């Protein structure tokens, strides 16, 4: 039996403490991009994100899924809650072994150019198997005016 979506706490990294929900989507074909988008909306809903922020997060996750799909190999998108002091957020991450040896700075510039408006933080962790990590915080005020200023 094939499991396209499983919950697991393995292989998730990042600088923040993890909290539920913890969801994982394996990305193998273009249909999985829709599943990533849907799962991200569900995860962000569980954390209490407003619809507009769910839209941002699901677009960021889907874009990351499209990126990993272009490598031609199956990869996994991890979605998990994170805590940093009083802040709660949603982390979206994926291992990107094809970026090993590529300048982290160049990767971050490219990612921020494409996705920087959608999330609060974009990081690249690890050397041998780099992981792209994106976080949006729930507790930071994001008004339409704040969006305009980004």
């Amino acid at each position, binding site marked *: 039996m094939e499991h396209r979506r499983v919950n697991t706490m393995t292989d998730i990294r990042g600088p923040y403490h993890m909290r539920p929900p913890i969801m994982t989507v394996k990305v193998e074909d273009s249909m999985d991009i*829709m599943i990533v*988008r849907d799962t991200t*909306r569900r995860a962000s809903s569980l954390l209490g994100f407003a619809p507009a922020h769910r*839209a*941002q997060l699901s*677009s960021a996750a889907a874009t990351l899924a499209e990126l990993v799909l272009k490598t031609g190999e199956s990869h996994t998108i991890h979605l998990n809650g994170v805590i940093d002091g009083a802040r709660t957020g949603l982390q979206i991450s994926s291992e990107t072994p094809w970026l090993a040896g590529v300048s982290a700075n160049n990767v971050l510039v490219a990612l921020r150019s494409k996705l920087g*408006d*959608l999330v609060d933080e974009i990081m690249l962790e690890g050397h041998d198997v780099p992981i792209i990590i994106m976080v949006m915080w729930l507790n930071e005020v994001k008004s*339409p005016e704040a969006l*305009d200023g980004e």
Partner: protein
Amino acid sequence: MALEVLLVEDSKTQAAQIKETLESVGLRVRIAYDGPDGIREAIENPPALVVLDVKLPSMDGFQVCRRLKRNPSTQDIPVIMLTEKAGPQATMSGLRAGADDYIPKDIFASEHLINTLQELGILE
């Protein structure tokens, strides 16, 4: 009395499908087939919600949303953009135009639309 939704969608086929979804949860639906008509309808008879496509003839959904959000008589009406343009730039354009949600037209669209209607208090 059921709340009324103004659906701005140029495709008659898609308008019929979205109308069916909205009516299935007890809402009444009025349809405008282009942006200027949608704005006129919203001003003359303000609905409880606007569901707005992006690709529209003569004026796109982003422009329609901005105009609705700048008009004091329509600025408080929630707007959900329901669209085939799903990329990061389009998403941010929709949200910056003032949309309350931006939902890609995929197989989960109806479910996400209904969830958002509940969240916005349009549905109990």
